[in-house]
């Protein structure tokens, strides 16, 4: 047995401590901006690591991940927008009695600002003249419902794409995402179309933690919520990867027929990995939507999916820790590249050029370091204390193993 270095694990721990402590010792003027960038980085890290699970571990190159994200976000947006609780019935809305209260469902109305306040609840409120208190749905319920809805969609799409492999699956899921975008843009009366739908923030009335009150615009609570969500997501993914589940999923990736012949229930595990990763994406989407405060179909454009793919590939598509760290790093790089500059008379608009740089980086990584940029580095540190001869010997064994399938052919 070889003695393995624990440098990568240590580095991971240091990173976690760093991010947990960061908001408390960072005090520069651009504090809200940096915090926002890190929160966005966490968001992308969740999506990227779950996509790495689906694509790298499961071998299902789905391009619909942003679609599931949007399912979660729109579910919670619609719930917070259309569902209210009131102690007395309005008699004009659709409503159901629930344990002494009435669940009120607003009627969908058009998009113009003049009609925004003319739904049935507003009419009822005008009649009541403040005598009745109406409660909105709690945010956590919306996020939970969004996550569940992501799972439902993941199940449906996962079942539909079961017989599909590689390119079929990629295009079908891309199509799913496009249809979702078309539907959201077209059903203006419900989703308000391109204008986007507004959401209450995570803590609408602020929150008091450890004797300190945080305003609803404060960055610290969403920072830690996103951070904990990321840690939970990574924890779940690691647990899955280390368990029987991960073994089966990888076996299916390598050879579905062989896995089935060895007794792996391929249908169950292929669908399950789809459902789980979709739920993670939906949870991230729902939380992020509440943090940003607005969700629009523009979050579904292919650019967003491309960013996830690029982050996963550059970090390392088969290792979701690397993918997550890569996502946070790249989010920072993308933000730093935002500054436009001028070379003589030519103005270089970096907001677009940075994406070109990103694309080229993606292609070069795939071509010359297909395991990503971080994974080889992690491997290097992981065998840091191993003698050269041992490495050479292991490489020899690897080479023999690699040549064996050729010999079989």
């Amino acid at each position: 047995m070889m003695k393995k270095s624990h440098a990568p694990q240590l580095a991971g721990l240091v990173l976690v401590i760093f991010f947990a402590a960061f908001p408390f010792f960072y005090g520069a003027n651009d504090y809200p901006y940096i915090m926002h960038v890190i929160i966005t980085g966490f968001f992308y890290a969740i999506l990227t690591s779950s996509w790495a699970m689906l694509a790298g571990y499961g071998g299902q190159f789905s391009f619909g991940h942003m679609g599931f994200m949007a399912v979660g976000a729109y579910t919670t947006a619609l719930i917070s927008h259309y569902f209210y609780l009131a102690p007395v019935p309005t008699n004009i809305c659709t409503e159901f009695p629930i344990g002494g209260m009435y669940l009120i469902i607003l009627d969908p109305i058009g998009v113009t600002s003049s009609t925004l306040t003319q739904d049935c609840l507003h009419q009822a409120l005008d009649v009541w003249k403040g005598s009745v208190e109406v409660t909105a749905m709690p945010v956590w319920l919306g996020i939970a419902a969004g996550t569940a809805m992501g799972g439902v969609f993941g199940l449906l799409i996962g079942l539909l794409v079961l017989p599909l492999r590689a390119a079929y699956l990629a295009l079908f899921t891309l199509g799913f995402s496009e249809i979702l975008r078309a539907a959201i843009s077209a059903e203006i009366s419900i989703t308000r179309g391109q204008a986007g739908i507004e959401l209450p923030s995570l803590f609408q009335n602020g929150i008091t933690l450890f004797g300190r009150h945080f305003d609803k615009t404060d960055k610290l609570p969403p920072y830690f919520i996103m951070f904990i969500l990321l840690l939970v997501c990574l924890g779940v993914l690691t647990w899955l990867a280390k368990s029987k589940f991960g073994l089966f999923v990888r076996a299916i990736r390598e050879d579905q027929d062989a896995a089935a012949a060895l007794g792996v229930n391929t249908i169950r595990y292929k669908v399950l990995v789809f459902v789980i990763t979709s739920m993670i994406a939906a949870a991230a989407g729902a939380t992020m939507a509440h943090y940003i405060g607005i969700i629009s179909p523009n979050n579904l454009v292919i650019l967003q999916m491309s960013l996830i793919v690029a982050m996963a590939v550059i970090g390392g598509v088969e290792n979701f820790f690397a993918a997550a760290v890569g996502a946070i790093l790249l989010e920072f790089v993308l933000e730093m590249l935002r500054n436009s500059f001028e070379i003589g008379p030519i103005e270089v608009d970096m907001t677009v050029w940075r994406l070109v740089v990103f694309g080229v980086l993606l292609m070069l990584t795939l071509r010359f370091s297909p395991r990503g940029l971080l994974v080889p580095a992690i491997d290097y540190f992981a065998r840091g204390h191993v003698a050269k001869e041992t490495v050479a010997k292991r490489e020899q064994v690897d080479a023999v193993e690699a040549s064996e399938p050729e010999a079989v052919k």
Partner: protein
Amino acid sequence: MEFPDFFWGALGWMIFWGVVGSVVTRRVYLQKDLDTSNTGLVGSMLGASTGPIGLVPLWIKTPEITTRMMVLPTLATIGVFMLVFSISDPGNLCVTNGSFVASQISNGVILGIIYGFMALGLTLIFSILGVVSFAHGEFYMIGGMITYFVTTVWFPGISPVFGVLAACMSTFLLGAIFERLFLTPMYEGKVERPVEYGILITFGLAFTLQYFVQATVGANPVKAKRFFDFPRLRLPSAEDPWLIKTSRGNMELFDTISISNPRFTAAVLCILVFIGLIYFLRRTWTGKALRAVSQDREAAAIAGINPDRMNMLAFALGCMIAALAGSMLVQAFSWLPQVGAIPAMRSFVIIVLGGLGSIPGAFLGGITVGLVEAAGTGCIPDAQKAASYIPAYGMIVLTLTLLLRPTGLFGRKFASGTHGKV
């Protein structure tokens, strides 16, 4: 819609019997130890069109499935659907106005020809490299952009032929260079999973190209002016031109069908190039070599064809075809860097519908998708919604194809295991 309850009820009935038909028919055929490869299609279509009346005899007799048994129920299902639609929405333009229907159909066919032509490039790439190029839509977009810049910005007044040629040549070169630089490791066995590598690397190319164009050109829509004007025609006579009447930008047939000039030019050119391509693939040595490689790489290599060079040629040719479609359509639609996404999806739908690797399939699939889109945009009552849902129509076709007949119209058993490896 006047009777939405009837419409959705009838649709639900058709879907229910379609599902029952496809599931039960397969079971019945399996039990009698018969060939089940097309039972899903026959069962579902027969179920959807006739309900239990047609299914029960099928289950009792279990005849051998012929082409006619697949085509007739499919047509019947389309007919029943159209009947249901016309009963439930009698006031719709699609039901009452014959000339509107004729215009929609001719428009659908014309656009379908162009779509099919573009899909041909994708099917060429797939059949030889085993890769679906995700950058197909970006080559389409670049083709249009180059044509626009050559004919309108850099050399205004130049013959559009040069614009089209410039677009073709530059995309051919770009495709060839990209193939040499990034796709070669796939055939040399240097990457673990070549199919996924192909997907990701072309996806990366698409991303890079799209934002490169946006960075250099900007995000404002552009449009080239039309390549040439129709000659003034009044047939059979100037007083009563019921047969054909043309103005510079438009053509009217039989007083009802109106075809706009850019689309007509594009379709005619596509057909010409299509014929030229068929000639190239069937009659020249290189074309035959390409087809040989698509059928059996190893045998072709033994016969003295260099499959690697054919890979490069096929990829470059496929990209060029997409660019040609784009350079034809830049005179018909306004052009943006993002314009390629929907045609790329559509091309994929078409080649799956037509059968991967099939050239007539691509053509027929293109016309089918063109007609479905024309029907969707023309007949759905809310016009604004109908236009927004354009990407969905193709996806419905794709889903149905994958569920009912995964090999497509002219599908052949495809050697998908090789993926460009010799």
